[in-house]
């Protein structure tokens, strides 16, 4: 069963109609080729109309699409020899973050990413992609190892946020996130971060300090969910659509705010419509980024990493009164 988003309903309906006509043409004497051609032209136009000017809330829906490719989907296409490793060595293994090593075009790398499920069973196992502290500590352990063996790190960001639970607080959710932010700052290997779905607040950021930050076109990155913001601002989570606009959470927004390096284009309608093409686009971006970063000596790499974040923010300096 395919999930259909409200704004794309006309496209899906038209496509279904075309499929129907095709079937009729194939199975009966009636030739509808001309009709089909006309409708396909109309479909192309409609797709461009609808997918060509997505509202922030539409993008939120795409970012949350049940079939949207996850970290493991990209890993299986982008890398070879992937081996997943488990555990933070302190408490447990958090399935909402996957970590391991692989080859990217013959170069050994470390991969770390949030992992959602695509159905209820998977989501329960993955805790809906919302990590506990042990997830972040597992991530950090692998980052440190990457540093030791001089492997670049690639992270995939895809979470609604760190898990808001009792045990998570007891085991130091704040400390785990804070530690990652700080330690990622000093890692002597290249770090490339790609937001592939939802970038939910500190829980996303804890895998998100790097030399390059990219976002898929329909991914989001936000300090608070649109629903949460709407509840705070207007005491009404139904106003999420409005909040999504105000908060400036889409990839083009973040590019404009000077936070991310680039937007990675998605296939028409979203990454889930064509995983292979999407993976190719990510592949190209990572390849180019690694080639650029590889040229830098460690000191420059770390200075540039700091400069990158230091300049994020907007304010005014007034004359002291």
């Amino acid at each position: 069963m395919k999930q259909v988003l409200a704004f794309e309903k006309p496209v899906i309906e038209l496509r279904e109609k075309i499929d129907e006509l095709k079937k009729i043409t194939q199975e009966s004497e009636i030739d509808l080729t001309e009709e089909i051609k006309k409708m396909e032209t109309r479909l192309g136009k409609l797709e461009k109309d609808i997918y060509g000017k997505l509202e922030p809330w539409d993008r939120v829906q795409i970012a949350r699409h049940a079939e949207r490719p996850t970290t493991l989907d990209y890993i299986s296409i982008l890398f070879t020899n992937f081996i997943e490793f488990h555990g933070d060595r302190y408490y447990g293994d958090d399935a909402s973050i996957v970590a391991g090593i692989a080859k990217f075009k013959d170069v050994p790398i470390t991969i770390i990413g949030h992992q959602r499920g695509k159905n209820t069973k998977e989501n329960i196992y993955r805790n809906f992609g919302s990590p506990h502290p042990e997830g972040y500590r597992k991530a950090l352990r692998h980052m440190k190892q990457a540093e030791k063996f001089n492997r670049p790190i690639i992270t995939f960001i895809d979470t609604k946020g760190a898990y808001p639970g009792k045990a998570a607080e007891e085991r130091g959710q704040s400390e785990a996130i804070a530690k990652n932010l700080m330690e990622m700052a000093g890692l002597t290997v290249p770090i490339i971060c790609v937001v592939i779905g939802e970038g939910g607040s500190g829980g996303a950021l804890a895998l998100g300090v790097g030399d390059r930050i990219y976002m898929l076109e329909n991914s989001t990155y936000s300090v608070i969910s649109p629903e949460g913001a709407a509840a705070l601002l207007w005491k009404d989570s139904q106003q999420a659509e409005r909040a999504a606009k105000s908060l400036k959470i889409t990839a083009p927004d973040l590019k404009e705010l000077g936070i991310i390096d680039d937007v990675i284009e998605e296939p028409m309608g979203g990454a889930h419509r064509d995983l292979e093409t999407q993976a190719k686009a990510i592949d190209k971006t990572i390849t180019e980024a690694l080639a650029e970063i590889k040229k830098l000596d460690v000191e420059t790499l770390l200075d540039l990493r700091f400069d990158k974040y230091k300049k994020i923010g907007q304010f005014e300096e007034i004359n002291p009164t």
Partner: protein
Amino acid sequence: MLKDFFSKKKKYASIPREEAKKDVPEGLMQKCGGCQKIFYQKELQKNLNVCPECGHHHQLNAYDRIACLFDDNSFQEWDENLISSNPLNFPSYIEKLEKDRKKTGLNEAVVTGKGKINGFPTAIAVMDSRFRMGSMGSVVGEKITRAIENAKDQGIPMIICTASGGARMQEGVLSLMQMSKTSIAIQRFHKKGGLLISIMTNPTTGGVSASFAMLGDYNFAEPGALIGFAGRRIIEQTIREKLPNDFQTAEFQLKHGQLDKVIPRQEMKEVISTILDLHQSGGNESETSTSV
């Protein structure tokens, strides 16, 4: 002395509400948030805003905090001229900033600078929860980052007193990124062997607890301070369970290994200056990325 400093301040933030006004003259008396007893404000202020009966720690504004840690007339403020713009054109944000500026006399939710604590030169960043609930936007992130950089360049210790509800929603993801900005500055500070002391006061939550508040060489808190990542209400909704009363208090965090020590306000200056004294030979610069 402290008394002189306090007497200059006209009003306190925690003025009793409407219903209490009848029996508590405004600006003169204050009800304790812990034991509900009514005190002369002067009496509370003399006691650093700590209830003499039950020990409840009331809010302390940024300048009073500085006065109770630093030696008289030693404090020099940095970057007080930084003010927030409205980068996302967020509805009614400018008005809210304006209102808080008037209410607090501050330009933003953090005061930074340097001074002397029992003679030891120290840099400090003090958050003030009266200004936009101490939330962190671009200015707070920038001022704290600059203060850490200054402390690093001058080779002096750094203290951060937190009082914040977290990242500032009205600046969206720019606020979120201040978590990484400040944390990177701290990493560089630690790498150079700098001493960072974090003092968490009520409340320290969200993006502030999940960044610089937890990154000190020593992480302290005042008694009873609320410290945590996610809000109590969100957690209760998520796990469909009532949380214990002491959940996310300083004492709870101490019990769970997240703090070095809970220190009453009256003892803070002494403990801090002892620590400063014990670190006079400074820290080593580190070759690797390992920072704490």
